[in-house]
């Protein structure tokens, strides 16, 4: 096998190859359809353009998906993130709307802290249900997914709370170093989570709990605590996403804010290569997944595809990405190897029916 050939195989075998390829393909398709797609202009010292919009709009999804990645890695799932977005957004907006001076920075921070505090409590609630009481994650978080919408409605009293607060608006629409502030917030969260999981042993411990909970317990890991922690982190991420979503429109709508974001987040995680069965997680993959989903949404709007077809279109792309990621699918269509090929990312054990060792 030639050197270049080998390098190509290593590249194609890389975990992030397919997500990146899909993203590039989508950007290319958009550019062909609308040549100005990739254009970026400078206006008032800020950068504007569709790519920047995609980055800005994907920030909330990236946040939610990062938290979701950790939850899924432990073998769980968090359906309540959309509701938590709505609740935290509602609390922050309500507090701000009742303040005498909506532009007071200190007041806005108080509002954020309060809303974040409530989100942490909600995350802890999820964590207790799953780790201590032992309810199945999908059921445990379904409770808050449903009840949380009601809670958000209660907070807003069924109204849409509109605010006019410069500092709050900045979370969604502000700029920093020519780029939207939201991008930095999402990036900051990603770096923080990456540092917390990969610089410490937390990441390995989370993966270990997701890979085999009983074995982890017997190795001295306090599995319950780890599981509890990831739901709290997930709720915190959702809360910040909720701030962004409501800040984008300067209003809190208990019904619409963060609606279905949990599904997009789960998709982003799966596209990124983290298995729904738990175990290994990939933060960079998740971020790519979120970007893919947002690009898809944006291009669907840009191409004037009707909302009904848009969902279908989205489904097709997602299926395609998941398929090329699936080891079984790759094994079927990619098997033409000889000798000892370079290691592909997923183990060939899953190529067929799983019979361990």
């Amino acid at each position, binding site marked *: 096998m030639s050197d270049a050939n080998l390098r190509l195989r290593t590249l194609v075998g890389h975990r992030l190859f397919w997500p990146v390829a899909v993203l590039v393909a989508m950007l290319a398709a958009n550019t062909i359809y609308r040549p100005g797609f990739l254009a970026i202009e400078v206006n008032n010292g800020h950068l504007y353009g569709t790519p920047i919009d995609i980055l800005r709009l994907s920030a909330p999804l990236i946040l939610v998906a990062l938290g979701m990645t950790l939850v899924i890695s432990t073998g769980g799932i968090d359906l309540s993130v959309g509701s938590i977005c709505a609740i935290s957004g509602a609390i922050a907006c309500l507090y701000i709307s009742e303040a005498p001076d909506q532009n007071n920075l200190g007041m806005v921070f108080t509002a954020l802290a309060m809303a974040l505090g409530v989100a942490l409590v909600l995350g802890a609630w999820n964590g207790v249900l799953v780790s201590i009481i032992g309810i199945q994650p999908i059921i445990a978080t379904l409770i808050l997914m449903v009840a949380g919408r009601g809670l958000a409605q209660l907070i807003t009293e069924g109204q849409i709370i509109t605010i006019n607060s410069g500092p709050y608006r900045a979370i969604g629409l502000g700029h920093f170093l020519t780029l939207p502030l939201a991008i930095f917030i999402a990036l900051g969260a990603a770096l923080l989570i990456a540092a917390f999981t990969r610089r410490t042993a937390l990441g390995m411990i989370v993966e270990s709990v997701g890979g085999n909970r009983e074995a982890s*317990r017997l190795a001295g890991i306090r599995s319950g605590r780890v599981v509890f922690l990831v739901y709290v982190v997930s709720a915190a991420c959702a809360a910040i996403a909720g701030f962004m979503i409501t800040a984008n429109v300067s209003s809190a709508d208990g019904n619409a804010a963060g609606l279905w974001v949990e599904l997009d987040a789960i998709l982003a995680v799966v596209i990124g290569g983290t298995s729904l069965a738990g175990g290994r997680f990939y933060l960079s993959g998740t971020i790519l997944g979120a970007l893919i989903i947002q690009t898809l949404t944006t291009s669907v709007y840009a191409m004037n595809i009707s909302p009904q077809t848009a969902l279908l279109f989205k489904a097709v792309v997602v299926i395609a990405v998941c398929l090329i990621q699936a080891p079984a699918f790759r094994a079927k269509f990619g098997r033409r190897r000889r000798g000892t090929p370079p290691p592909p990312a997923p183990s060939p054990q899953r190529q067929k029916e799983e019979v361990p060792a």
Partner: protein
Amino acid sequence: MTDSRPVLTMTGISKSFPGVRALHDVDFRLFPGEVHALMGENGAGKSTLIKVLTGVYGIDEGVIILGDEQVAFSGPMQAAGAGVSTVYQEVNLCPNLSVAENIFIGREPRRFGAVHWAEVRRRARALLTRLDLDIDVTAPVASYSLAVQQMVAIARAIDVRAQVLILDEPTSSLDAGEVEQLFRIMRQLRDEGIAILFVTHFLDQVYRIADRITVLRNGTLVGEYPTAELPQLALVEKMIGKDLDVLERIEEQPRPELATLEEGTPFVEVSQLSRRGAVAPFSLTIHAGEVVGLAGLLGSGRTEVARLFFGADRADHGDVAVSGEPASLRNPVQAINQGIGFCSENRRAEGIIPDLTVRENMILAMQAARGWLRRIPRRRQDELVDKYIKALSIRPANPDMPVRNLSGGNQQKVLLARWLITEPRLLILDEPTRGIDIGAKAEIQKLVVQLSDGGMAVLFISAELEEVLRLSHKIAVMRDREMVAHLVNDDTVDADRVMQTIATGTQREEANQ
């Protein structure tokens, strides 16, 4: 017997995994009406040969002929349909389903289109009776010990009308009695003309049951021999490729006297510890540097005692003292903090984290004890992992390979390393040599002796009485979930005497408790 034509012929089989050549140009034949032992060290390729045959993996090269046709199965189900029934090395039953459901899954007897449950249970009971096992077939499989689970998997395999029966280390956690029962049935099936492929690391079993032996080494075929023409020493030589000076006898090394060990405060002392439904109250003291063996039959409560010592299960009653101070062992974290380690017998459910690498699996317990904030520096990880990969000769010696890609025996060694790395003061070993080849087994036994000479206390459980006798200073005998005797392992104690105690439950001589 072997003058007929082979029922199965595998020719020129090769199979590679990324970075590992598991099989290279291997030939294998199986005749009707024979028991054929497939032998080789850990990682030699035995399980891979079986999985290639039953279609779990595709082959890179080679031809498989079953009966008169060339076959390439797409998976175990199809293989079973074609008359190749297999018990894989790791018991893979559905833990939540009942014993009866597990036995008949996928081929339930039906009546009027619906599953005939009464019939399922009746036939399951009958099958298990054949194996001399009397258990509640409606209880979930997970509620039974590993040995029982192994028996259930065997029951499922022998019930299928097969022409080829494959048993990959079926006896690894069975006691002498169950092995006897299994052999009886194997002989019966053999006489009916079924071809049986049998993998084990117990040489004595091979000589008792096998008609012919095929030896693999490092993924290549060494040869095929009639059992009668291959003496045990020659077999071992063929398996490991050199003579057996590793297997020098352990007893010959001088060992500290029990009396000297038992001076001073014991490391752990439990009194009247019990757990309802698991073990009746028992007392046991373990001193530093002492190896305490637990003997008893399947289901006698050996594992349950071990789990109480580690806090894996919570005791209902009883007192624990560690180094003379009252202590509590209510969960694994507490036990680990007291310097206790526990290597479970069930490596798949309670041991390995399949996705994580060899390195991560090895450092897991140490990392957990340090807390997640204090990550073990990479340099230190490398040192530890390299040291134990060498010490236990784990193959392939690649710390970054996911542990699920290792052969069964090598996975077992990784688990052992996980606990050795924590340098415990008491190490509980529940069947530590399960599925480990003879060379490595001798190494591990030597290691236990070394560690105890260095002051580590060991609680040693094994279905092999010889092993317990060889290593232990004293032996606690379990019977019907009760600790019936404590024996000092001196010259007067031998296998017969322990067996007698196990059988009768009488303490003919009370030893220092």
